[in-house]
């Protein structure tokens, strides 16, 4: 971990060119998106399993704190996507390296160009929502519910540390290895390819997803009754977020549930891509064998759990009776209809 501090302070001190800052931004935006991804997959699975809980989660997404987070998330995704394309380009055309500095500028420019209209549209949704004097979830409610996630992370990492420690006690492998692992890593070679291929597939999928649920419809409109549901010919009659999810997943084109397939593809690719990125960060900065094994274990478990949970929700779908349950769940939720940030 000491090298994490060194890397941060020395990256700030070293007068690297734009490539260095592109790398920093790529890491920071990637980590931010993974954090949201974890919350988002768990939240969305509630639409299938705990409709009342899902309604609360959407209520939180409509709060000012999450609105700021949503803007940051969209900016992070757009930058990470654009810079990812730059990385892939120079990985496969290393002889074009002399254009990389220019490409890094283009990435920044393109991100801004994409963000300006995106933010304008998103801001329009925000204004429209606040025009209707909505009931806002309070900060303390948000902290309370997000604390569960934090507790979950702590428990998983603690459990992984205990397992790793037990493994170290049995095998006697502790401390930092003096010599690097000398086996050729087919896995790393394979993941290198996967990161690039999955990145290329994720870009159109995630941009489509952002366009549908952040721009065309937006998180504020998925709880408007009578609002058409993006990507389907259905209307959200109950005005509940679970109905939005349920009708999208049940929408068939020529007998195929296209949005389930779309969401499933996005889920699998993004989780593996994101958690492998997390593994790279752990490999870079966690050198103690016990800590590294624990974090790697937590990452593998986290990725598997999210994929299983997400696919279980996609397969289960949303029962139409859930539309009513969501309503009850929402009404039991404490609300203070005051200023943004809950007064």
């Amino acid at each position, binding site marked *: 971990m000491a090298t994490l501090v060194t890397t941060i302070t020395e990256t700030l001190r070293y*007068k690297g060119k734009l*490539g*260095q800052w592109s790398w920093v931004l790529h890491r920071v935006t990637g980590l931010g998106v993974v954090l949201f991804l974890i919350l988002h997959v768990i939240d969305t699975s509630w639409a299938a399993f705990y409709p009342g809980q899902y309604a609360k989660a959407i209520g939180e997404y409509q709060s000012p704190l999450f609105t700021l987070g949503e803007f940051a998330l969209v900016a992070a995704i757009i930058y990470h996507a654009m810079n990812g394309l730059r990385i892939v380009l120079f990985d496969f055309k*290393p002889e074009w*390296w002399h254009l990389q500095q220019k490409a890094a500028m283009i990435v920044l420019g393109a991100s801004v160009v994409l963000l300006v209209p995106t933010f304008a549209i998103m801001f329009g949704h925000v204004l429209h929502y606040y025009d209707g004097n909505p009931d806002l979830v309070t900060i303390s409610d948000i902290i309370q519910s997000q604390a569960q996630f934090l507790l979950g992370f702590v428990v998983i990492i603690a459990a992984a540390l205990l397992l790793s420690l037990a493994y170290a006690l049995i095998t006697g492998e502790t401390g930092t290895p003096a010599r690097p692992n000398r086996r050729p890593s087919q896995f790393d070679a394979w993941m*290198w390819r996967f990161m690039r291929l999955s990145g290329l597939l994720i870009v159109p999928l995630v941009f489509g997803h952002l366009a549908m649920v952040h721009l065309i419809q937006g998180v504020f409109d998925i709880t408007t009754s009578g609002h058409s549901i993006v990507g389907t010919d259905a209307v959200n009659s109950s005005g509940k977020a679970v109905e939005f999810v349920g009708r999208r997943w049940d929408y068939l084109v020529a007998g195929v549930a296209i949005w389930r397939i779309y969401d499933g593809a996005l889920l699998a690719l993004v989780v593996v891509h994101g958690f492998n990125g997390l593994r790279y960060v752990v490999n870079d900065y966690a*050198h103690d064998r016990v800590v590294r094994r624990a974090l790697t274990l937590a990452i593998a478990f986290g990725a598997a759990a999210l994929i299983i949970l997400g696919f279980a929700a996609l397969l289960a779908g949303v029962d139409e009776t859930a539309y009513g349950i969501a309503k009850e769940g929402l009404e039991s939720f404490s609300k203070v209809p005051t200023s943004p940030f809950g007064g």
Partner: protein
Amino acid sequence: MKVKFRIRRFNPEVDKKPYWGEYTLDNVEPTDRVLELLHRVKWEQDGTLTLRRSCAHGVCGSDAVRINGVNKLACKVLVKSLNLKDGGQIQVEPILGLPVVKDLVVDFEPFFDHYRSVMPYFVPATPLPGDGRERRQSPEDRARFDDTTKCILCACCTTSCPSFWASGQYVGPAAIVNAHRFIFDTRDGATQERLNILSEESGVWRCRTIFNCTPACPREIEVTRAIGEVKLAIQRGGR
């Protein structure tokens, strides 16, 4: 002109922590090289200042230091290239990621260990030709690795790399450049072995294409390109 020097000092026998030593030099010419100024500090002001240099002409690669935030050979940097005003500051510190022995001198052994690990020597693919003369190669084949023959092992690239700062076990740009020189040599027979070595956990996959190494190279080797070509060779399963 007048120049202020800020030099990172550390004597492990006396100092608990490194500190910045400050020195002022008068009558500095724009055409002076930083190495000459370091000599002036040592010879005129503080004889305990420790630095390493041999040829002093950018060939031996022994005086790599970080100058005003960027890795360079002290013997190749002219004062005028630093765009200083009169009384401006030159900050010199040891390259990062290798243990500091004293002041600006670092221990190169870990760096050379990585260099040795990639088999940086010719392994003939064919027996010596019957006429007992050299193994011939087309100019095109020779050009394929011309750029990476220029390395002088100064460690400017490796110690500019955040991946190397993060883990000294990463083989680093310089070792990959020297592997590239033989991997793409059509006369060499150990390409696959080197690709296997560089595909290890500490190998090329730790490169994040940050591009700090390329501008750091005093020989203007296209370092990140060479690393990229090695990655693609591993993916292809051959040169």
